[in-house]
């Protein structure tokens, strides 16, 4: 008999309010399996502010503190400080925010928290737009995508903000990307983050069938193809920003295949798809070059 690789403990119930095929919901389920019941979630305005359920219900078996849109990181830092001053050094405090609350409105408070290296796990479940308000572009929305504020006649032409690099610039002890398509990997990363003191940043690709105009049964498929098409590299940054590890052990698939079932890219012409695909490959090559470059330099002592 094989040992189950995914913890059997369930800290999330089925009675939540998410859309069918919601990646953010899968992300939470696995994250809580990794973190266990001694966890407190701080959730700002985002899909999860609703998914959790309306008062007096909650879909998870850990405490949640709902907070204002731009404050997830620093509210979590406050919770951690409050707990420690009461003698509780065990509880893991997790800020759980969407990409709007991370890349855009919450960036300042997150930067402050990371610079202080406050002891929290900051999770951005990245569905690449303001999905809770009805699919408006965020700075995480990828180039080429349609949203309700980037109509097909004026789709997003600027690239997705490189949040990972921004966090790496803060020299925090742990940064990782994850995808709901790789739950064992996601759980491993959360367990690793839990054991590290300081600010940990985990960015989870959470496909959103509603916002991506994707069939709900394709959430996991899209989460996998995003990785194998090199659009969303799986990586870890350790040693305070000085060591980069990129996962390369996969069979590469095409950008075109990844975007094909996603209605948000349907308007793109062949030549546009080709151009974006080339940029994806170029970013990937730069990432690998950086991995190699960082490995060749001795790490900082501090």
């Amino acid at each position, binding site marked *: 008999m094989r040992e189950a690789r995914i913890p059997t403990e369930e800290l999330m119930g089925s009675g939540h309010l998410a859309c069918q095929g919601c990646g953010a919901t899968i992300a939470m389920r696995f994250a809580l399996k990794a973190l266990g*019941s001694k966890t*407190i979630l701080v959730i700002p305005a985002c899909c999860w502010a*609703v998914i959790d359920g309306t008062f007096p*219900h909650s879909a998870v078996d850990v*405490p949640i503190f709902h*907070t204002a849109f731009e404050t997830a990181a620093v509210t979590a830092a*406050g919770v951690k*400080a*409050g707990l420690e001053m009461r003698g509780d050094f065990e509880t893991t405090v997790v800020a759980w925010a969407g990409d709007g609350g991370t890349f855009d409105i919450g960036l300042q408070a997150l930067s402050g928290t990371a610079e202080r290296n406050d002891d929290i796990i900051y999770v951005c479940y990245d569905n690449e737009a303001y999905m809770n308000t009805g699919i408006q572009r965020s700075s995480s929305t990828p180039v080429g995508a349609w949203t309700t504020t980037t109509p097909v006649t004026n789709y997003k032409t600027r690239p997705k903000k490189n949040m990972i690099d921004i966090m790496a610039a803060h020299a925090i002890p742990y940064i990782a990307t994850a995808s709901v398509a790789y739950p064992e990997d996601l759980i491993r990363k959360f367990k690793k983050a839990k054991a590290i003191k300081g600010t940990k940043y985990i960015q989870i690709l959470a496909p959103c069938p509603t916002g991506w105009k994707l069939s709900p049964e394709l959430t996991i498929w899209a989460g996998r193809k995003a990785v194998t098409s090199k659009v969303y590299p799986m990586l870890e940054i350790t040693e305070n920003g000085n060591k980069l590890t990129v996962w390369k052990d996969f069979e590469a698939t095409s950008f075109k295949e990844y975007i094909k079932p996603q209605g948000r890219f349907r308007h793109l012409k062949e030549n546009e798809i080709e151009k974006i695909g080339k940029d994806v490959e170029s970013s990937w090559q730069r990432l690998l070059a950086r991995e190699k470059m960082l490995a060749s330099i001795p790490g900082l002592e501090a």
Partner: protein
Amino acid sequence: MKKVVMGNHAVSYGVRASEVKVISAYPVTPQTHIVELLSELVANGEIDAKFIKVESEHSAMAACVGASAAGSRTFTATSSQGLLLMTEMLHWAVGARLPIVLTNVNRAIGPPWSIWTDQNDSLSMRDVGWIQIYCESNQETQDAIPQAFKIAEEINLPVMLVLDAFFLSHTYEIVDLLETEQVRDFLPPYNPEIKLDTNDPHSFGNLSGPDYYMELRYMIEEAMNDARGVIKRVGKEFGEHFGRYYDMVVPYRCDDADLILVTSGTVASTTRAVIDEMRDEGIKIGALKIRVLRPFPFKEVSDILCSTKKVAVLDRNISFGNHGVFFQEVKSALYGKTDIPIIGYILGLGGRDVTPKVIREVADKAIKDKNPEPYINWIGVKR
């Protein structure tokens, strides 16, 4: 122990005596001395607390909200633009029913940039749900801190303590410093029943439909109503412990007064000197200081003012389009209770000095003024 300290440092010593566990703040003139001294007191172990040095006032209040929700006693200080930036989280502290204490140094709002005092910053937060107490002396800025925590922790609402920029914040006065051991009897350690606790998991602040929201707002108003009695009782208990008593309002020579000047903050001290001078001249005049603005002391204000013949309200603030805020408040307290004239005067904005001469000018004018003017009575404005 008595020591000559500036108003800002008196605040810091009040925090030290109150065994605050989490402080989070951002520098802003003229409040900065408060957090500088707190940083020192935390660093040298005189305060056993964590000090989260945030990147903005918005984050300062968010950190306080988080720490308070986790069950720790929390404090912050700010002023003017900083208070305005906090606005969203000030509301959050109220809705989440967190007993945070904040000291706001009253400073005018820009533009144009001004670092000098007026009350428009704190008064623009009048309707948020924070208890607001306006301090008059350095002694009071210190004494108000443990009182504020005691009040806040009993009714689960945050308290904002307010002091005038420079006239208090940077002015040195003798202050009888509170000792932690003495204060502990008056203010026991904070140990709330409801807090973030993994052994008893709840979701705080999640989406509430029209079926629940209104009741939660009703409960905040009920707490505000309860605060009236609590503030009075706590002010009395503080007096029993330390010999200095505090109340919602402070009347001065009002008993047989034909005219009462209503004031707040440091203007109250100056006004009392003018009252003495005019009494010596045989003029029947008194003063009423409003110490607590929220909850508004309707009963105390109307009991005192209904016995006089005329009321003049001195406002170091302006509610554009509707006179001064204290004037509005006093009028609403007296509505239906008396027909006496209530006249409002705007003075001292942006730190313009309110000297005894200025107050005498208001008093002399008020004696002559017959009825409330439809226009605003500006004192000393250059037109």
